[in-house]
């Protein structure tokens, strides 16, 4: 048992921090978030072709770096700290994970190579309109035809759906419910039968799209493994994605604490730095507690994610550890960002200070892939042995 970063992992973290300080500083973020696509194409090119971050946990057999989920989360934490505007999360935490778990050899060979070599962007569409995620929220239906399948329906909130090259679609056999009848498909985003509508978002650093499928015809090539029984696969992909987002949230929770500590050391009221007042010191201490605990939850879950991807002995802990990480980090990031804004006083309320960007990212993140209450209820079911 060793729960500290290896030297390599330390180096990855530091170099990522240095790199992102260059390409994703405040100015860069504020520029990228105003662009129609929501990210800077050159930066994405550089990340995908020079840094090759998207290859981190892809096995070498598929031209990946063959590193682990811990290394991936180290990068995601740094991206969260810097509010990196890029289709990285959607491509890697959703797209790549879906391919790794549910892709056919053909699909893996073809698409993972594209991701590796051309910085191809992936996205995943699963939930329909409403407040839910996961299998029960899949509303798009597929029916089998002579030539393949036909998809109809709407996906409400697809992260980076507007700019993705390929999209993984979750659909259910017409008439099924809950975990039943789920199928996964992967298709070029410009495929006829797919309409994409970019949605204006409160958090400008992460975009989402509304995607409609109208008689979308797909053949066997597009069909992923276990069609009609892919519910468990989808749930695994979402848990892996949740762990990745928890890592981003950890980055947010830590960064807002640093911004705040720097500010309250400088800002003076009543003739002393406001950071010398107990009320603010104690809030800062609570923020540290949140951030440090979030760190523990994220990296434990990341280790479990590796187990799951490699079917290790602890693989069965995937959903539990993902929900623990998400339930904790969703709140930690939001609470810390909210406290940070309060502790910045009037300044935090202005557009020019960055705190609000983190507050918006934190709030948006709370609602992807199940909010805190949803994950706690899932934990309760596991705890009380109510799930199979």
């Amino acid at each position: 048992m060793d729960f500290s970063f290896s030297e390599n992992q330390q180096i990855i973290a530091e170099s990522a921090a240095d790199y992102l300080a260059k390409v994703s500083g405040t100015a860069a973020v504020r520029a990228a978030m105003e662009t129609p696509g929501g990210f800077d194409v050159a930066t994405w090119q550089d990340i995908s072709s020079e840094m090759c971050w998207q290859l981190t946990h892809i096995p070498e057999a598929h031209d990946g770096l063959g590193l682990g989920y811990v290394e991936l989360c180290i990068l995601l934490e740094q991206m969260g700290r810097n509010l990196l505007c890029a289709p990285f999360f959607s491509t890697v935490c959703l797209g790549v994970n879906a391919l790794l778990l549910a892709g056919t050899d053909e699909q893996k060979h073809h698409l993972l190579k594209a991701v590796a070599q051309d910085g191809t962007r992936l996205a995943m569409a699963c939930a329909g309109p409403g407040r839910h995620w996961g299998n029960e929220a899949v509303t798009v239906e597929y029916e089998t035809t002579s030539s393949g399948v036909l998809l109809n329906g709407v996906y409400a909130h697809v992260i980076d759906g507007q700019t993705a090259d390929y999209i993984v679609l979750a659909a259910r056999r017409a008439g099924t419910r809950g975990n039943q009848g789920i199928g996964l498909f992967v298709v070029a985003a410009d495929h006829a039968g797919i309409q994409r509508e970019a949605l204006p978002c409160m958090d400008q650093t992460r975009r989402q799209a509304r995607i409609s499928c109208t008689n979308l015809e797909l053949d066997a090539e597009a069909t992923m493994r276990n069609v009609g029984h892919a519910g468990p696969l989808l749930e695994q992909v979402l848990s892996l994605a949740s762990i990745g987002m928890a890592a981003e949230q950890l980055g947010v929770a830590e960064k807002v604490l640093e911004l705040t500590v720097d500010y309250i050391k400088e800002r003076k009221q009543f003739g002393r730095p406001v950071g010398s007042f107990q009320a603010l010191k104690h809030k800062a201490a609570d923020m540290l507690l949140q951030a440090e605990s979030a760190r523990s939850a994220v990296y434990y879950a990341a280790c479990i994610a590796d187990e799951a991807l490699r079917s290790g002995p602890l693989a069965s802990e995937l959903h539990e550890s993902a929900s623990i990480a998400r339930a904790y980090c969703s709140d930690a990031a939001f609470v810390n960002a909210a406290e940070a804004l309060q502790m910045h006083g009037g300044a935090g309320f202005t557009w020019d200070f960055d705190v609000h960007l983190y507050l918006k990212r934190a709030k948006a993140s709370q609602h992807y892939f199940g909010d805190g209450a949803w994950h706690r209820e899932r934990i309760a079911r596991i705890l009380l042995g109510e799930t199979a």
Partner: protein
Amino acid sequence: MKLGFTSTDEAFRDEIAGWLAEHLLGEFEHIRYRGGPGDEHAYFRERRAWEQAMAAGGWIGVGWPEDMGGRGYSLEQQVIFHEEYARAGGPGRVGHIGEGLVGPILITHGSRWQQQRFLPGILSGEELWCQGYSEPGAGSDLSNISTRAVYDAGKDNWSITGHKTWTSLAHEAEWCFVLARTDPASRGRHGLGFFLVEMQQRAITVRPIMQLTGTSEFNEVFLDQAICASEQLVGEPGQGWEIAMALLGFERGVSTLGQQMMFQNQLNQIITVARRNGATADSQIRQRLAQAHIGLKIMRYNAMRTLSGNMVDGSLNRAAMISKLYWSIWHRELGNLAMDVLGPEAEVAAAQPYELTPLQSLFLFTRADTIYGGTNQIQRNIIAERSLGLPREPRMTG
């Protein structure tokens, strides 16, 4: 103790409700429910016109004494007035600073000349006011004011120089009340003056502050030897702090009941969303909706206690002391609840480039409720020291 209103009061309720129903339409139809906090930048011209329509109807200064041009309504009637106004979706008042703060302070502390000069403009809705309290270096610590007022015996006027901030309406108002240091040697609460300053002069520059909502309703105000005639100093030099504090007392008056009706409208919106998107099936959301309802009811009961304990003079009782802390925390959580009821939808804005929905603005704007007008940290200090008599912090300065 008794609840409910007399039949006379209820008759008055019908009168104001009727008047609003008749007048809050046509050119004003589209400004209903608009212009509240977070939305004060919206439809300014129309709301100024509406202020004057209100004046024409005799609905400004209803609580002022009749000899000051008011209507001397009873507390109950004022409560009813504010309730009905909010219930009808009356737009955010552009004259609220004049009617709610400047008027009352001039009535209690102003000279006869000041009353005759300024009250009519407020009652007619023709002169709007803004407030010049906060400064970049004097946010929570208002006593740290560094704006200076220098008296010119020759011209018998004051020359005011300084930098004010968080001033709403500054770009629209004709007048501003400014807290400035009349004694350059003074520190803290001493040596301050309370000035009534005309905004239309070269010496004053207004710069909007862009907020996290992407909109601007607050401003920075730069005074560079702005001129203020000596009769526009309220009270004496050195009385500024006392007057400023008395004025803050009025903020907790009957108007809070109108604010609460606005809160009620917002809570109703959220409940409507919950019904639509099925959030009412989520037991956590149900608890939080109930919590919001409970919190708002109790806010109202607190206000009723405050008002019954004759608050009209602006003196503070315990229920009044907690009011800012209470409502700001409640309102901030309401904004958060709005987002969580919406769930993933919460992200979707009204339009590109960055036009937010009312509930998104509520969420973001309420983040400031716990900051302006004395942060919650300051509120707690004041409560602990004044209401509970706990010892002051060791002070380095002031």
